[in-house]
């Protein structure tokens, strides 16, 4: 279990790094899908198969495929790659990367300074347990999430109306 967790977590980190550094958008998105699959594997190894499956179906499956389609339809060719490569100069990424590295070191220090006694156990949380929680103590959260989706839908509908082109 422990090996599976660290292995997939490492793949997730590496894949995400490539998402950021890759110059071709379609390739970057493919790496992003790998990263999401690896995160799903992390969930599996932590004993949450339901969350892992949702991660694959919803993120890697539905959202990312849509994303890839859109990016492919935009037909971003070699000119974008050249532009991206131009933007990815060390002068640009070095500052933020160094600062993030400091934060990462700080986080790792904090994580390992407190004596870690918890180990990864194989206790599995199945779909039924998730459902019982969602429609038990978190009932209101489910209802409010539906309102949130409605709000997002209405906002997207309004902003995406055809007049957006005509009037501008």
């Amino acid at each position, binding site marked *: 279990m422990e090996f599976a967790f660290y292995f997939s977590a490492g793949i997730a980190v590496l894949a995400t790094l490539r998402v950021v550094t890759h110059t071709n958008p379609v390739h970057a998105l493919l790496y992003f899908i790998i990263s999401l699959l690896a995160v799903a594997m992390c969930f599996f190894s932590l004993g949450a198969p339901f969350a892992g499956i949702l991660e694959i179906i919803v993120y890697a499956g539905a959202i990312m495929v849509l994303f890839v389609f859109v990016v492919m339809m935009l037909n971003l060719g070699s000119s974008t790659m050249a532009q991206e490569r131009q933007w990815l100069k060390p002068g640009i990424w070095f500052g933020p990367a160094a600062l993030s590295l400091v934060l990462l070191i700080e986080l790792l220090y904090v*994580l390992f300074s407190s004596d870690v006694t918890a180990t990864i156990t194989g206790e599995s949380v199945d779909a039924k347990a998730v459902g019982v929680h969602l429609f038990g103590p978190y009932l209101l959260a489910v209802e409010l*999430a539906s309102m*949130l989706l409605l*709000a997002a839908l*209405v906002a997207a509908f*309004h*902003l995406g109306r055809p*007049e957006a082109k005509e*009037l501008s």
Partner: protein
Amino acid sequence: MQLTLSHFVALLPLLVVGATAIAVMLGIAWRRCHQLSFIISTVGLNLALLSIIPALNAAPTAVTPLLQVDNFSLFYTALILVSTLACLTLTHAYMGKTEQAGFPGNREELYLLMLLSATGGIVLVSTQHLAGLFIGLELMSVPLYGMVGYAFFNRHSLEAAIKYMVLSATGSAFLLFGMALLYGETGSLVFSVIGQNAVTDLTRMGIGLMLVGLAFKLSLVPFHLWTPDVYQGAPAPVGAFLATASKVGVFAVLVRLLELSPATAEGWLNTLLTLIAIASILVGNLLALLQNNLKRLLSYSSIAHFGYLLVALIASNGMGMEAISVYLTAYVLTSLGAFGVVTLVSTPFKERDADALYDYRGLFWRRPYLTAVLTVMMLSLAGIPLTAGFIGKFYILATGVDAKLWWLMGAMVLGSAIGVFYYLRVMITLFLREPGMHHHDAPTGWGQQAGGIMLMLVAALTLILGLYPQPLLDLVQHTGLAGL
């Protein structure tokens, strides 16, 4: 988990606002009618305000682990409902009567989005659980993206929407990361359990990251950079909503988190908050000094005002909570009034809102009563006696002196002194006689419209609370948090 009738009664304001949003949506689906949508939303919000009375009898009660309905949450619910109501009436005026002389395109969705955002605000003020905090915050922010960019054919509005969306999402990411750390360390999402056993470095880090996310929404320095652009680009009534209802919701949840969680009782957090408060007061006031745009000026002044509010939060002695309630009430009234005047002068919708200071030059000679309202609001924002703003500021100063926060007091006095300068500058502009400048004007007879009447009420209330604050002071004494 059993939900009984008393739970539903306690939840009534939230349910009524949610039902109103659904009713408006169905109304739009059935037939688009600007007037009808406005009437349904107004009636719904008024019903929600009335439903606070039965809810008060049911309080304090915890409805599922997520929400805690107590006097504190109901007071802030009322504040959010009132400001939403005011923003709705302003929107109605702003949209204009017809497509030709007014907002081109769909107008009804703005009411729907505003109601949904208010729902999120009500969740925020009553939540005692990190999951509730996050869902409430998102439910409040997501409709705001649509509202800020509502006039999407206007370049500034679209730009503001994109800026707000990207930065707000960044803030949410910080918030989520902080929550994950807190949950990983304590194994609970309930405010009062976080940090109960031992406060470790991980808990501190989580609290710090959450603070970043919340400070983004409150536009405290150094997370304030989005504020002026978004306020300027958003349609004026949306700016009013952004400055009042959304900020009240986030500040209320910040107060509850800091008061309930044992993890935040340590000294380092107070030092951090002190630094943020001093920076917000000074930077907000200094940047407002040379603004020639009224909306941007109001945005910078709101940064400073939330710096003042942090002072009361840092003091957090017995009077601190009352001071926060009084100050927020005064701030909401004043902001509504100031943005209300901007809205009415920009009414009906045109390509550009009347937000430049020279649009207001000599307004007194054309619209004397509207000018009087704006004058009162500027005086109240500056904290001049006989206005509600003075009572609020006095309360906070008293709290700060009581807690011996001398550095903060110094910053506050300095900030107020700078503030008087630019508020008075706006007032002078209003009275400058300038012939031949009639770019923008409120429509004649603005006082008989819903927006105008609301504005008059707000101005009257600001003055009355300044002259006779006792009812408000009595009220806020009963708005304590349950479980303290």
